[in-house]
């Protein structure tokens, strides 16, 4: 145990998964040395409000610091990015050259916003991505200056939430997405059509099926317009690029782990898998960065970029880190997310990817208050509620149990059961298709 006291456990990534993982280590009785490394200078903060109430100006960007739920008694290395991992020597190299030894390691480095390529105008001023607190602060300040038109590229959850906020601020907004509706990738075009109606009602100029080729700037290097693939141009003096995220795994390039922009591959117990395909015994991963086989979905690998996964997986990995090799619990988590936009509370459970059918099972699409279930090959795989969260747990249970599609019949407020094609866009190129993304 003296080795543990001297070296101890290192958590790389001081956001939600890292923090909740560290807390779980302490809660499970780990008394040794604990180090948390974060590339941002900030204490762990909560991200979901950034694209909502921080953009709207109701919350200050630095107000969403996460509560510490147990006494961590940890060494915090904030503002120090990890740049390398040596699995043989069991140490981590930081950007400032420091080398930190570990006995066990939790990788929770999360993801980073997919930027717009510089070659196509990405370096122009007033083009923003939205991932971290500093991003949100910069974007909020720019919105407060009252741009003439905001262009949002990507109608996923972040893009739609940003559009909703901008309209609430009274700003003219154009939203562009290659798919026929917003949220096409996470919810399909049939449900996404409801949000398309909300966009219309709130005055967002939505261009479906459109692709931005490049941004153009003025003499001072500020963005002024976007050129679309179909030859149209959109005048805009502020651009939000909301094209999802890539996993923060660059620092693991030479570590001999199965890791790429799609995540760090783990086994079912959150243990990182080495390049030779064997699970490591001392390295775990959790949160956005982890990619693991989900038994419920045929053991396929997914990385799940959701708040609830960061909390649950961080704690689960921590539990396994302290347990002997023959007592590793498998991580059985039903992915779930929420979003609020255009006054509607959207909550979803399960992974809708690959669904071949969808049906409203409670409420009605017309009222924009409903619960819809997604099916695949006769099995219920996911559900989404629009302002109808109270029934969602019953459907989550049914999905966990692998119930047939539709799972619950003869229920109250259930109209004629009409099943429809969900309308998912074709999958993206290989490594991207495994991401359960916001959007």
């Amino acid at each position, binding site marked *: 145990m003296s080795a543990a006291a001297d070296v101890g456990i290192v958590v790389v990534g001081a956001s939600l998964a890292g923090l909740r993982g560290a807390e779980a280590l302490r809660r499970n009785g780990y008394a040794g040395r604990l180090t948390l490394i974060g590339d941002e200078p900030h204490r762990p903060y909560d991200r979901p409000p950034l694209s909502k109430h921080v953009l709207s100006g109701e919350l200050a960007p630095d107000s969403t610091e996460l509560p510490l739920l147990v006494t961590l008694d940890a060494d915090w290395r904030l503002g120090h990015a990890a740049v390398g991992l040596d699995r043989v020597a069991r140490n981590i190299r930081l950007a400032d050259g420091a080398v930190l030894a570990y006995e066990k390691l939790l990788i929770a480095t999360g993801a980073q916003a997919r930027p717009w390529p510089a070659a196509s105008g990405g370096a122009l001023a007033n083009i923003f991505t939205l991932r971290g607190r500093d991003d949100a602060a910069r974007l909020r300040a720019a919105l407060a200056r009252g741009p003439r038109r905001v262009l949002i590229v990507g109608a996923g959850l972040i893009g739609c939430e940003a559009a909703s906020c901008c309209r609430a601020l009274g700003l003219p907004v154009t939203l562009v997405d290659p798919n026929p509706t917003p949220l096409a990738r996470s919810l399909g075009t049939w449900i996404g059509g409801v949000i398309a109606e909300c966009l219309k009602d709130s005055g967002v100029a939505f261009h479906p099926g459109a692709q931005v080729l490049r941004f153009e700037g003025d003499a001072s290097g500020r963005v002024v317009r976007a050129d679309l693939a179909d030859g149209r141009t959109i005048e805009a003096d502020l651009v939000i690029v909301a094209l999802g995220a890539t996993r923060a795994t660059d620092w693991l390039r030479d570590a001999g782990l199965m890791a790429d922009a799609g995540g760090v591959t783990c086994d079912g117990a959150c243990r990182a898998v080495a390049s030779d395909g064997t699970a490591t015994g001392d390295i775990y991963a959790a949160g956005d960065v982890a990619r693991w086989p989900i038994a419920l979905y045929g053991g396929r690998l997914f990385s799940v970029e959701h708040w609830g996964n960061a909390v649950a997986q961080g704690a689960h990995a921590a539990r396994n880190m302290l347990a002997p090799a023959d007592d590793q619990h498998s991580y059985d988590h039903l992915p779930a997310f929420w979003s609020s936009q255009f006054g509607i509370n959207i909550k979803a459970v399960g992974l809708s990817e690959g669904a071949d059918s969808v049906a409203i099972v*409670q*409420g009605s699409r017309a*009222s924009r*208050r409903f619960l819809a279930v997604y099916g695949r090959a006769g099995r219920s795989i996911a559900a989404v509620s629009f302002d109808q969260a*109270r*029934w*969602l*747990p*019953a459907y989550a*249970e049914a999905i966990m149990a692998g119930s047939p599609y539709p799972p*619950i*019949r*003869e*229920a*109250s*407020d*259930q109209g004629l059961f009409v099943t429809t094609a969900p309308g998912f866009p074709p999958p993206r190129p290989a490594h991207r298709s495994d991401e359960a993304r916001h959007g």
Partner: protein
Amino acid sequence: MADDTLFSEVLDPANRADPYPIYARLRENPVSPQRDGSIVVSTHAAIRSLIFDPRLSSEDLPPSHRPRTGNLLKDWLLNPIKDRIATAHRPLIFRDPPDHDILRSVVMREFTVARVQALKQRVVRDVDTLIDACRGRDEVCLVEDLSYPLPVAVICDMLGVPEADEPQFQIWATQLATALEPDARHDQASRHRTVAAFDAISGYMRALIREKRRHPASDMLSALAAPGPRGQAVMGDFDLISTAILLLVAGHETTVNLITNGMLTLLRHPLELDRLRADPERAPRVIEELLRYEPPVHFRTRKALGAIEIAGHTIRKGAPVILLFAAANRDPVRFVDPDRFDPDREDIQHFGFGGGLHYCMGAPLARIEAEIALVALCRRLVAPRLMVDPPPYRPGASLRGPERLGIGINGIAAHPT
């Protein structure tokens, strides 16, 4: 072999003072079919699962005028009084979505934070006055001295019922609450009284609503009766009357029980009483633990609209399902040492206010009343002690609480500053 008559033991008034051992036996089969065809659900996990299940309906059973069968539960389920109330006036606790959701959101829009906050001062004042009135006595009769008069005054204030009519409301509310009870003592005379009370209160409400429309005030009934944006009332009179009656009845008996059970529990746990007296900031924890340990509503009934697989059992379509919330609150699988009253529990996820979309609308008000009353009682009653333990209980098995609670005292302390 599971005992399929356990629920009739729950209904038996002889077990009113301590139904918990029966609940423990029921929990051995989380889903217990009873001989009469009803299903009793008693574990935390099973109830948690069912309250979110849209196949469980709150729509009341279809009307029936069958004669009494001699079976307590069956009679209750087919109770013609309930039929009449359910068909003539169906308040939202007996409705499913979308009607339920629409009515509820209309009510909740008026059940504002500001309205509830504004009642706080009134509760403080009333509690002090009621306790002051016990000066010079060596015994407080908690139910009639405080638990009973307080909630009716508060709900009448919120609704906008003139104070002079409060005593009449108290009588109606008490009588109407019996319609929820599957109790053998519902004799013919009591049924007639319930019908009469119902007719009387409906007539009263109709007149009051007319009055509120003529002279709107800041109360909730005025707001609910006011014309909406299109000139029409948001709720029709039919729903408005049943909603007003519901708020009155539901906001009444339950709070009486919460306060009385609360004081009874504290008197049985003197250490906790002392701690609350010394540190009123403990009150929120104490109240939540009370809602788990001695909830004001022990069970509610639903109906299965379709077959439901749960805990290895199939609830058949059409079966009456009894959600035994008070048993789930003592489930050892969910709570460590569940029969211990312990306000310092890590998390107290109870069903004291039910759960799911029928979660008690009046919960915030109940919490405020209970907190203010219990803290004041602990601080002002000098050397309080139970006169009779267990106290006599009212007949209700669901809305369960003492009929009288004598508390011996050595005087009333001045109002603590």
